[in-house]
């Protein structure tokens, strides 16, 4: 006897329970424990948020020229506003601020087409940004040719320095990390050992030690009088240090790629560089985007450590401002502002990585 000779139609799901009350009930007060925690969270938010907002915005002083203009009850943002030039550029001469500005705008302008779908020369533009642009930026900011006045790196500072340190660190440590990760998985024992020793060495020492060595010890090995730029030394130190972390993140991705992918690309006749570049790395890097961005964010925040070797990044500039006898006692404003700037950049990186993951998602694996 046929059980059901007609195809069953697909029915719509049961009338869904919508509305805010239902949502709250379902998500915040679904169980006794959940309800208690939700209540506690709400109380905490009500206790903390209003005074914080009041301090930072409603009772805050936004304009004025000196201490006397500050409102006692709120944050005094004049402190930051007065020094905004230093916060952005360090000791870079004010009349030359257009040079780093131009470099920044140029980078933004060059990057925009990368996000336009119908733009066809993304690879070339990307290569230009990575290979040619750094030289343009260097000549603009440092000067010394095309009639531009030299501004020595000792005068660079503030947010500009933070961004330069992290951008160079990020751009240089990723390819180095990839090479180290591939090296660590190499079948050639010597090559592999070199990579393992490198990674384990740099991962085993604190960044502060690296920076101290770069600024204090390294010059001892150079001939008397030879001046090796301090910023460059810090950059090299940060890059070498972070590339070791990057290598391990990338290696994790490489290990997650099934053996069949290697075999299929080999069987098709792809040699090692092509098989890595076209098949394995695109998949492996996609898998470890969260780890890579995690390392980038750590690197971004670690750049603050350069203050101990006498470079004035954003945080160091704020620290310096706090010692101004005119403005003693504005630590809260200074550090809250610095934290906010760092948070904005880190949060942007985090959101970008999520967007990138979504974009590169090509359905189910394998």
């Amino acid at each position, binding site marked *: 006897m046929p059980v059901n000779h007609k195809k069953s139609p697909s029915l719509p799901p049961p009338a869904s329970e919508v509305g805010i009350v239902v949502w709250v009930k379902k998500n915040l007060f679904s169980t006794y424990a959940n309800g208690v925690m939700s209540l506690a969270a709400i109380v905490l938010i009500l206790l903390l948020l209003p005074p914080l907002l009041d301090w930072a915005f409603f009772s805050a002083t936004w304009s004025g020229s000196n201490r006397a203009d500050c409102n006692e009850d709120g944050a005094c943002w004049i402190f930051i506003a007065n020094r905004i030039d230093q916060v952005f550029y360090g000791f870079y001469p004010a009349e030359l601020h257009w040079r780093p500005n131009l470099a920044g705008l140029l980078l933004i302008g060059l990057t925009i087409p990368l996000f336009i779908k119908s733009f066809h020369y993304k690879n070339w533009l990307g290569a230009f940004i990575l290979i040619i642009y750094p030289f343009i930026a260097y000549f603009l900011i440092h000067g010394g040719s095309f009639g531009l006045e030299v501004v020595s790196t000792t005068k660079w500072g503030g947010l500009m320095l933070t961004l330069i340190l992290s951008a160079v660190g990020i751009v240089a440590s990723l390819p180095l990390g990839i090479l180290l990760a591939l090296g660590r998985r190499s079948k050639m024992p010597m090559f592999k050992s070199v990579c393992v020793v490198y990674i384990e060495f740099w991962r085993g020492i604190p960044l502060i030690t690296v920076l101290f060595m770069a600024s204090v010890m390294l010059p001892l090995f150079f001939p008397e009088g030879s001046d090796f730029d301090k910023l460059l030394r810090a950059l090299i130190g940060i890059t070498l240090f972070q590339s070791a972390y990057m290598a391990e993140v990338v290696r994790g991705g490489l290990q997650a790629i099934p053996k*069949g992918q290697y075999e*299929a690309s080999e069987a098709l006749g*792809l040699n090692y560089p092509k098989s890595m570049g076209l098949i394995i790395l695109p998949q492996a890097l996609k898998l470890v985007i969260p780890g890579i961005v995690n390392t980038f964010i750590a690197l971004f925040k670690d750049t603050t450590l350069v203050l101990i070797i006498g470079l004035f990044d954003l945080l160091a500039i704020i620290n310096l401002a706090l010692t101004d006898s005119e403005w003693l006692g504005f630590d809260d404003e200074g550090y809250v502002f610095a934290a906010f700037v760092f948070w904005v950049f880190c949060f942007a990186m985090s959101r970008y990585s999520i967007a990138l993951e979504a974009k590169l998602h090509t*359905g189910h694996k*394998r």
Partner: protein
Amino acid sequence: MSAEHIIELNGVHKWYGDFHVLKDINITVQKGERIVICGPSGSGKSTTIRCINHLEEHQQGQIIVDGTELTGDLKHIEQIRKEVGMVFQHFNLFPHLTILENLTLAPIWVKNVAKAEAEAIAMKYLERVKIPEQADKYPGQLSGGQQQRVAIARSLCMNPKVMLFDEPTSALDPEMISEVLDVMVELAEDGMTMICVTHEMGFAKKVANRVIFMDEGEIVEENEPNEFFNNPQNERTQLFLSQIIQH
């Protein structure tokens, strides 16, 4: 050596550590032959065909593909891999590329074929395996049978002289096996030289001109399909055949 011998394995031995996986394997394949290799799991059938394109390395004996001997020499390996296509049990399509990109990748990057031409070739083979409409999808969006047909087309795009099949239907749901086998039958009818490791005895009877039975790393019996299935000589072959026919 006759020019018609496209593949020769002479006294091939292989060890995994101390484990002797291939023992004195001798196979000669003429152009246009369809060879089926069967045997219980762990008998070395997959290892044998994986040695032919050097996914596995043999330690003793000689493997000659289309006049080129496989040694450790990378040039020889690359040469042979251009001539030999391979289809895997788990398809091994590249999940980050579309179907069309999966097919054009090797012709473009290994044979330096122009992109437009590679795409034309790819579409030709996609039509041949009857899924041209899936060209812009990603492998993850296709069924297992479709993926395996794409994998076959991907190999064909390199215009190989020999196709190796490593249990191409073992990972498929039953209703998808025949769509893959149909493609393989057509391929055989067109005169492609094929070596298939498979448990599809129906396919072997229909297509193969020789069946090789392996057990414990050696070739136990080798015969044309009729004799092989109806009149197996060796005890182990008889046991194997009785076991797979029982169910």
